[in-house]
């Protein structure tokens, strides 16, 4: 019981910080403050680099913040992965607009 407890104590601050960053990112995104959202999502992704959801949100926020290179890298890293239909649609829209901008 001691090992899971120590593991929990060790992981809790970082996991909570990442969750707070994710929440702040979503709030900033809802307010249209995409550069703040990008900063917060980058923090969250730093903690959970394999999270498709966090990477997708980071890519979408980066796209709206005009950070196209960052958006492209985030979308490339989740290419082929599954996600909820809403987020897949958002990512596809952003990727299509990115392609148009590139042309």
């Amino acid at each position: 019981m001691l090992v899971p407890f120590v593991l929990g104590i060790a992981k809790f601050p970082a996991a909570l910080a990442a969750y707070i960053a994710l929440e702040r990112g979503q709030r900033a995104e809802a307010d249209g403050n995409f550069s703040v959202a990008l900063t917060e999502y980058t923090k969250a992704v730093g903690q959970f680099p394999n999270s498709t959801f966090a990477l997708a949100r980071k890519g979408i926020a980066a796209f709206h913040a005009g950070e196209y290179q960052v958006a492209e890298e985030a979308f490339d890293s989740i290419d082929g992965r599954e996600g909820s239909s809403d987020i897949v649609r958002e990512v596809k829209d952003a990727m299509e607009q990115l392609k148009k901008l590139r042309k």
Partner: protein
Amino acid sequence: MFFIPGPIIAALTFPGVIVHEFAHQLFCRFFGVAIFHVCYFRFGNPAGYVIHEHPAKTSQQIWIGVGPFIVNSILGGIISAPASIQVFQFYVGSSLDFFLIWLGVSIAMHDFPSTGDAKTLLSAISAPGVSLAAKMVAYPIVGMIFLGAIGSVFWLNAVYSIGVAIALPTFLVILLA
């Protein structure tokens, strides 16, 4: 309503039973109350128990009785919260995370003091010589324990344990974000 016999629930969530009895034992040790026998887990009713001497003070009896609520809630929350953030917020989770969620929820699920604990407490405060102040504190606690036991029939302890594991981090985020 969905009914699962208590011994099956106890077996599926056995770490919680162990921690529950450990919490009673911990508070007995803390107050220097002699312990005669501890059963951390068994297939039966009750699934675990601690037999100890009668504490010198009523307050000690109260602390020993409610000890599992404190220990199981804290332990269950700390073990499961990081894993539940990973699984339910970031949608990434290894088998270790699912194991930790099960462990944390199992522990938190047994944080309600049992009706046995309530009966022991009730007999302690009903004894002659117990002050009115002690009775005023202890009777509501006994009442809440019995209510919790009734609520457990309606899965109150399961709801509470899931709350500790999942809702607690969300609550903290709402406060801090």
